[in-house]
């Protein structure tokens, strides 16, 4: 769900790319490369609404509800740190001046993404094409590889459908790993300072989740351990009316994501939502992050 960027769809009727059951192993074999995928906002909010009402009904107190919702987000946040750090290491530049033939790599990645979205049979074809390309590019010039690849593309696909599925699985996994990792010259270092990790949330995490950076990142002037991330119009809770006393609590999901993200980065904290409406933005929301004391102590030691 949050694996995809949230973008406003054209209409309620926008369909989500259908999942193909014949590609159940796609989850593991698909490249970790960032692909721009849109999810219908309607579908997303309907799902979120069901999640909220399920939790709301199964909880006896408001605190319990907030805790549960936050836990949902937390498990996503924990994973996101890993994924986004990995992706941030993959600078687009590395594709151009990476060691092996540049044209082949870019060409390969485009085919991969194209194919995975087109037909079911290509699931088997993808890896084969990549490996094929690599062997070719070793022997021939990259230009030639490009030409032959396109022609061999369809032929390979036909050919592969006759093969047994499992035959290629291992090979494919290995190839994909290599194909991505090869272009990471240097892993991004984990953020160790409060400000750095918050910047990462403000920029990268927010762009990943909501397709824009957060609207503001503020440090509290009163308390040293408090920071605020501000969202002028929260996407997930935009349809939930404010006249309900439970409405603010619905934001604990995103709080949970932030919390999980910071926790796995080694910054234990608590995150709470607060409304702070302005003239222009009625729904303006502040995520208040309160770091544990140990984080501040560590920060002081490093300085």
């Amino acid at each position, binding site marked *: 769900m949050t694996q995809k960027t949230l973008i406003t769809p054209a209409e309620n009727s926008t369909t989500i790319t259908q999942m193909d059951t014949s590609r159940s192993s796609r989850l593991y074999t698909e490249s970790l490369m960032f692909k721009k995928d849109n999810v219908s906002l309607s579908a997303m909010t309907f799902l979120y609404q069901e999640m909220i009402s399920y939790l709301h009904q199964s909880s006896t107190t408001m605190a319990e509800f907030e805790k549960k919702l936050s836990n949902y987000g937390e498990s996503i946040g924990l994973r996101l740190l890993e994924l986004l750090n990995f992706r941030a290491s993959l600078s687009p530049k590395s594709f151009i001046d990476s060691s092996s033939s540049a044209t082949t790599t870019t060409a390969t990645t485009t085919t991969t993404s194209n194919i995975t979205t087109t037909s079911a049979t290509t699931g088997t074809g993808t890896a084969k094409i990549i490996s094929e390309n690599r062997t070719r590019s070793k022997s021939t010039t990259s230009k030639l590889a490009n030409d032959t690849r396109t022609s061999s593309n369809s032929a390979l696909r036909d050919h592969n459908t006759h093969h047994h599925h499992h035959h290629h699985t291992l090979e494919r996994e290995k190839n994909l790993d290599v194909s991505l990792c090869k272009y990471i010259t240097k892993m991004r270092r984990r953020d160790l300072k409060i400000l750095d990790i918050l910047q990462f949330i403000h920029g990268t995490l927010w762009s990943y989740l909501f397709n824009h950076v957060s609207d503001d990142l503020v440090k509290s002037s009163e308390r040293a351990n408090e920071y605020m991330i501000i969202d002028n119009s929260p*996407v997930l809770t935009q349809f939930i009316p404010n006249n309900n006393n439970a409405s603010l609590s619905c934001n604990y999901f995103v709080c949970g994501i932030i919390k999980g993200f910071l926790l796995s980065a080694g910054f234990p904290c608590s995150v709470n939502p607060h409304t702070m409406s302005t003239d222009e933005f009625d729904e303006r929301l502040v995520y208040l992050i309160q770091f544990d004391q140990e984080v501040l102590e560590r920060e002081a030691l490093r300085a």
Partner: protein
Amino acid sequence: MAIQSLLIVNKSGGLIYHRNFTGTGSHEQQKQPLNSNDYLILASTLHGVFAIASQLTPKALQLSQTQIDYTIPYIPNLGTSSGAANATSSGGRGSNIGKLGSFKGDDFFKDSFTSWNKSGLRQLCTDQFTMFIYQTMSGLKFIAISSTVMPQRQDLNPDRNKNINPNNLAIQVADNFLRKVYCLYSDYVMKDPFYSMEMPIKSDLFEKKVNAMIDNIS
């Protein structure tokens, strides 16, 4: 077209939303303002009449099998602020995004659509107001009461105005407007986790958006 009242009636005839918009001021007040019970009765009466109306289709129509075109043309920027105001107010994203909820672009829809209200009640013309009913596929009814009064005197030369019959134009405008209220409903009511189906609508966001749309229209 000044909207006086807006009602939403659920598929079993219960009134789930009702607002009077008395911003026009120039109108005389009702002798005895109706209480909420009166409106409940009104809603269920309309619901019943709606069903009766479809039973009354004349024999001549049943026999002739003429195909009636139920397509309602799209009327641009009805109830939504125009594109110019949109561009100036947007300092980036934020104010622009979420402006129309989950609807992309500067209007909820841009195409003509087919009316689902084929044999039920659509319009009631009286001396003081006109009532319009828009029915959704699931039987939900959006009812607008407009202070516009349809002309009761026939044009001396009807051929001249054949294509711009004010009555049918009014139905099209009303259908466009009510369809947009339906769009708002789909966002701010259906996506509210604390709303229980078929129950009165209490969402302040829905309220606010409807008011904004009414303001834009009149």
